[in-house]
């Protein structure tokens, strides 16, 4: 059962993730994008970084987030700059809100993604719908 008390909770900074050119190419191919030299970094790639922060929430017994009951509700990325191969990225997640809605919970996570110079690169905002026990 999702604990509404985690609203406002911040999770620790993740360890650095090095963005690899071939990983970006693989992700671009998987999203039906271009893979030729000079291809555009897929805009949804930061989800892979957000994932590392989200795994901290899933592993947190206080949060009580049962991932088998989770449906992805909304996703947003706000980009300060495009990612480039070689970027060393860390992320920090905050539980922005927890709302109850007819036996279900809606939880919104703001994940800030930083580069090696500690500059914000992207903010990933994810809203998950957690189905209630009897839903």
């Amino acid at each position, binding site marked *: 059962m999702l604990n509404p008390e985690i609203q406002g909770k911040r999770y620790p900074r993740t360890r650095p993730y090095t963005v690899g050119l071939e*990983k970006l190419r*693989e*992700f671009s*191919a*998987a*999203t*039906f*994008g*271009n893979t030729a030299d000079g291809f*555009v970094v*897929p*805009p*949804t790639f930061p*989800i*892979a970084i957000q*994932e590392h922060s989200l795994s901290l929430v899933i592993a947190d017994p206080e949060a009580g987030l049962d991932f*088998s009951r989770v*449906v*992805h*509700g*909304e*996703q*947003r*990325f*706000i*980009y300060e700059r*495009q990612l480039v191969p070689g970027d060393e990225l860390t992320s920090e997640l905050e539980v922005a809100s927890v709302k109850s809605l007819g036996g279900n919970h809606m939880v919104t996570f703001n994940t800030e993604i930083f580069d090696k110079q500690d500059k914000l690169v992207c903010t990933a*905002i994810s809203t998950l719908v957690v189905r209630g026990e009897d839903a």
Partner: protein
Amino acid sequence: MPEFSSLETGQVVAQREFPVTRDSLVRYAGASGDFNPIHYRDDVASQVGLPGVLAHGMLTMGISIQPVISWLSGSGEVVDYSVRFTKPVVVPASGEALVNVVATVAALDEENSKARIDLTTSFEGNTVLGKAQAWVQF
């Protein structure tokens, strides 16, 4: 190559149909690290009461922006991209789910040379994303 000054609200700038197969889902699982079995196993999907194996929402989001990237061909970049996941895309074991994307100019920010491109992503005649919007900086 599109120029900001030539854009008009309501203008359709890109349209593309994507054949999504089980292979696509496995490829996306590997690339993204999202190995939730509801995206490749029929038995697991039916156990949790789904109508079938579903495409990852994030795959649908990733696909939907591609026509915009192709249209831009480097003349602008996406600075904000958001969607709501409203309906699932069910992907058959064999054959393909056809996902259609239409990109339309919805708003222009003349002062900052930014355009909001709205995406209509549909599968079997139903829209699967709500409020799918990308702001492009020219």
